[in-house]
């Protein structure tokens, strides 16, 4: 299951130039960590904050009458981060630089979302 999802993520995102891919659950547990090494990025904190961030965003959505926002994107000077929900309980985090376009990342995520959901949720 993990190997299959890793292959999908490497082929689709890492090979497209995405620096880091993290697949986590909504409690902040890391299922897959690809790309940068543990020395370069504090994945545990990132996963906890991302889960909290999407949880908080879901509450904001409810306040304005939406069910949820499925995508979150933050732009930085050298790096960008994109959060997307996969099914009910998974979150896909991608970190990429200016050399990769947001459109490409979003297209690739849309392409693989369903395959990942089926792998983990059946």
């Amino acid at each position: 299951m993990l190997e299959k999802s890793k292959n999908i993520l490497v082929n689709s995102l890492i090979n497209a130039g995405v620096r880091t891919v993290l697949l986590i659950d909504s409690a902040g547990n890391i299922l897959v960590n690809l790309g940068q090494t543990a020395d370069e990025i504090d994945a545990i904190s990132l996963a906890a904050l991302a889960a909290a961030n999407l949880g908080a965003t879901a509450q904001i959505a409810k306040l304005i009458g939406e069910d949820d926002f499925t995508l979150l994107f933050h732009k930085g000077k050298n790096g960008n981060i994109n959060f997307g929900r996969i099914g009910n309980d998974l979150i896909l985090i991608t970190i990429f630089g200016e050399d990769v376009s947001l459109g490409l990342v979003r297209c690739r995520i849309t392409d693989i979302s369903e395959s990942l959901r089926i792998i983990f949720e059946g």
Partner: protein
Amino acid sequence: MALIDLSKKEVHCKIVYYGAGRCGKTTNLLYIYNAMNTKNRGKMLTIDTKGDRTLFFDLLPLNLGKISGFDIRIQLYTVPGQVMYAATRKLVLKGVDGIVFVADPLRVRKERNKESLEDLRKNLKDYHLNLDEMPLVMQYNKRDLADTPIPTLTIAELEDDLNKELKRKYFEAIAIKGNGVFETLKEISKQTVHQVAVKHLLTTL
């Protein structure tokens, strides 16, 4: 829910410190962070907010060594205690494996403690978890206040208010000085790892 990585032989458990506002949850984590060897603990994550309240959560990852060849990794979380942060408190409880309930001994906080325990029970129920079946340890904090003129609750009163029906192990603590902090952590880790092993690991292997 605990995450078991069979390929890396790792078990990840989530322990949440729960309790009313200003009872000392973050103080517990800070003491553990400062006292532990850097090899066995990760970075402490605190979302920086003005003032000394926790607005979202604190996180401290720990390495507890190996059991039956599995690396035991624990993540300690605190919740914001103040009543108004109900939504965030519930978010942090998602996927919890063990709970430390920190009680404030100030007599004026008697009702707050009880409300917080009820709030915990209700939030767990929303995640289809039952407090009576969860690994849980009570910590009666700020025991140094008992020797001062500040009106405080006795251990018997705290037990009667919070632990009469639950009947869980309790520890007296002065978290700011470290008294009782590691005793509490040791007990909750033991209970949590045991429950995770019985529930998930022994059936998986």
